């Protein structure tokens, strides 16, 4: 019997030994290599990229690009705007090439721009191209491709004609909607982006290896217009979705830059110097059913808004460097003159004021919260939504004496319910690539598709409409300030805070650049 036990044991050990013997090919440690973990996209075709565009922005380059927090010229040499703000004449830089050496021309840019608008393509992000004349009509099948405001003047010159003036159009040009594409490659195979020999771009890197959903290896593109400034030898991109696993990989130095630091480790990461926090173009706020009791009463809405301690939420609950919000525009967005931010010009539309909140609630007929009807706050499962909701729920109870129920639903169901405005209060969060206040303010026009607050104010609609059609930058910003003030004076929504981008970065990674939407740029990065 002993003999058999021993035999079994030996066999077991042998098995384990055999397993461990098989050592994978040791990757030659390239000196300039960074492993970056980021969100996955089911498709890396720029038309279908569902992320902020970090990955595709390394393989392709737009007419303009983000650099050091500003929008600068990328593939474009110069951009001239007509006095009425409707025509942009773009001259490309000299000798632009694709990664396979072929010449890059204005026609390639036109192809990319038109393609996302083709109805058959069913491009989800087509809306970011609707600034162009007839783009929307073409996408709806009501106009021809030839009618769209994109004209090739010659190989180096492109003309873009807009529907109406757009003060931030240069930042829109950084979008993947406006990347050039190789017509003959793209039309030959719908999955061209999956293969290294057909994923041809004009960006700083080319795709050397690709394992969908798992790993992408990028190496410098020798034909990139600024190739001499690209310092990395290898940029390896991973798609780990779990924040705890990413953190473990970061600690094991398998990943050097990560984007999912778990909320409960923020303090430790800040202390160890691994966390980099920078401003994000995002607002977190609450919508309320402005047409149904009890929140149809502006006094109730204001009471709810004034009784929330945003500093406590940001400093004690979230602790991620977020900024309390008393308006609907993140502080990083610039105003008319670039040396001032929108928030500098008009900082706070209100502040926490619990006595005033109590007073307003009493005026509305609910002194000390008595008689306040059953109210539900809707949120989605996951992330920090629950802790934020719980904090607010307890603040309302403590400061106003009202009981609000929390209802957490799965994301897709949550979106459906919020859109149907089934509940009086719901959370809302929206980030963008466009550094302009209209992103959030335009949501609340009376018949807006995304007006989940059912905020109806014809005056507000007029101001927003004027702003959309105003070519003069100063006048436009004045209108936007007016609109924001009106929205907040009516407390059509309750702003809560401005989230921040949080990134894990190893201390020896230098010259990393970022986009305000949360994109990470490795063009000039290197390992010290």
């Amino acid at each position, binding site marked *: 019997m002993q003999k058999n036990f021993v035999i079994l044991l030996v066999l077991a050990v042998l098995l384990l030994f055999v397993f461990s013997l098989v050592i994978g090919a040791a990757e030659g440690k390239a000196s300039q290599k960074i492993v970056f973990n980021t969100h996955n996209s089911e498709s890396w075709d720029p038309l279908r990229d569902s992320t902020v565009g970090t990955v595709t922005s390394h393989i392709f380059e737009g007419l303009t690009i983000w650099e050091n927090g500003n929008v600068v010229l990328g593939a474009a040499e110069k951009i001239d705007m007509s006095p009425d703000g409707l025509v942009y004449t773009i001259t490309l830089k000299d000798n632009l090439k694709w990664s396979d050496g072929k010449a890059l021309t204005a026609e390639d840019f036109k192809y990319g721009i038109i393609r996302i608008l083709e109805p058959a393509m069913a491009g989800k992000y087509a*809306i970011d191209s609707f600034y162009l004349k007839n783009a929307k009509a073409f996408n709806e099948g009501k106009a021809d491709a030839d009618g769209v405001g994109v004209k090739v003047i010659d190989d180096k010159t492109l003309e873009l004609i807009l529907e109406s003036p757009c003060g931030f159009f240069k930042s829109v040009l950084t979008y993947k909607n406006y990347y050039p594409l190789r017509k003959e490659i793209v039309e030959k195979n719908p999955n061209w982006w999956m293969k290294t020999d057909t994923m041809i771009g004009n960006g700083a890197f080319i795709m050397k290896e690709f394992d969908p959903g798992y790993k992408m290896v990028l190496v410098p593109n020798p034909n990139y217009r600024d190739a001499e400034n690209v310092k990395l030898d290898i940029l390896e991109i991973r798609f780990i979705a779990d924040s705890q696993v990413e953190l473990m990989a970061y600690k094991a130095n398998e990943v050097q830059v990560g984007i999912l630091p778990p909320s409960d480790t923020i303090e430790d990461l800040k202390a160890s110097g691994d966390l980099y926090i920078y401003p994000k173009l995002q607002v977190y706020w609450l919508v309320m059913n402005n047409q149904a009791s009890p929140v149809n009463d502006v006094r109730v809405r204001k009471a709810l808004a004034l009784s929330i301690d945003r500093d406590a939420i940001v400093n004690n609950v979230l602790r991620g460097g977020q900024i309390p919000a008393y308006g609907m525009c993140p502080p990083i967005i610039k105003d008319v003159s670039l040396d001032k931010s929108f928030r500098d010009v008009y900082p706070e539309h209100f502040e926490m004021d619990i006595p005033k909140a109590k007073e307003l609630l009493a005026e509305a007929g609910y002194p000390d919260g008595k008689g306040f009807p059953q109210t539900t706050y809707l949120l989605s499962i996951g992330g920090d939504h629950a802790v934020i909701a719980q904090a607010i729920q307890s603040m309302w109870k403590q400061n106003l004496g009202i009981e609000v129920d929390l209802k957490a639903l799965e994301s897709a169901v949550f979106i459906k319910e919020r859109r149907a405005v089934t509940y009086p209060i719901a959370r809302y969060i929206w980030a963008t690539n466009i550094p302009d206040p209209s992103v959030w303010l335009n949501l609340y026009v009376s018949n807006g598709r995304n007006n989940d607050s059912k905020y109806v104010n014809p005056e507000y609609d007029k101001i927003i409409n004027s702003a959309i059609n105003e070519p003069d930058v100063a006048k436009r910003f004045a209108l936007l300030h007016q609109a924001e003030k009106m929205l907040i004076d009516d407390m059509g929504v309750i702003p809560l805070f401005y989230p921040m981008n949080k990134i894990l970065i190893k201390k020896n990674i230098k010259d990393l650049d970022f986009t305000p939407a949360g994109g990470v740029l490795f063009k000039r990065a290197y390992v010290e």
Partner: protein
Amino acid sequence: MGFLTLIVLTTIAFFLVKAIPGGPFDSEVALPESVMQNLEKKYGTDKPLHEQYFLYINKVIHGNLGESFKYENQTVNQLIVRGFPVTARLGLSAIILALFFGISLGVISSLKHRGIVDMISLSFSMIGICLPSFVIAILLMYFFGLKLGWLPFMGIDTLKHYILPAIALALYPIAYISRLTRASMLEVLGQDYIITARSKGIHGFKIVFIHALKNALLPVVTYIGPLTAYLLTGSFVIEKMFSIPGIGKMFVTGIGNRDYSVVLGMTIFFGALIVVLGIIVDIAYVFIDPRVKFSK
């Protein structure tokens, strides 16, 4: 018979999945009307439900599982071809570990009945059965991956990469199989024919392996069906945690994405797999238990 099962499965799954609130094109900020219309036209979701069903069933019968709603321009067939070999390799490693260690532990426990080994094995089984696989996964990753640095815990670049995820997946079946084997062996070892064999002078090795184990393994063989189903579904969590690009991860994210084609396609695929496995188990029975014969 199996084919009919699959048709029924597909039908029920189809209507269930379509009944879930929320759709594949919903997003925080709604897409413009024209974009929504283009999407619905492309995927045929603008047609009436029964029409969608018949179109889908027709496609499935011809072996076409449709195009993914989220992985645009990629068919579910392509996704399965890409992801299943990975999941299968992981599952197979786990099955080998589970059978080898499960049966060994079970046999040893039954032989050293109520001894130290038996007690240790019992405690170990309790842990394996009670701890969820993702807890085991994190513990393994943390200790063997991060703290000790012995084994990798991200992806599947080399064979070494399969070790931790396979162990995480196999712990529950090892525990379960060891208990099953132990109980079955104890029962068999007490049978008359074993006593006869011993009295005839056959001892030790021969008794255990040739006479007893073969019969004791019947319950284990029966378990292989549900075991494989568990490994396929348990792999979802493990794949996500270890960043393994298999189909398990795709299936789970497909539900959140309301990716109807992926969810239905995977359901049919797994259903077919289980039907095939059932047939294999039935055949295995014939060879293990001479009392079972093919029916005319």
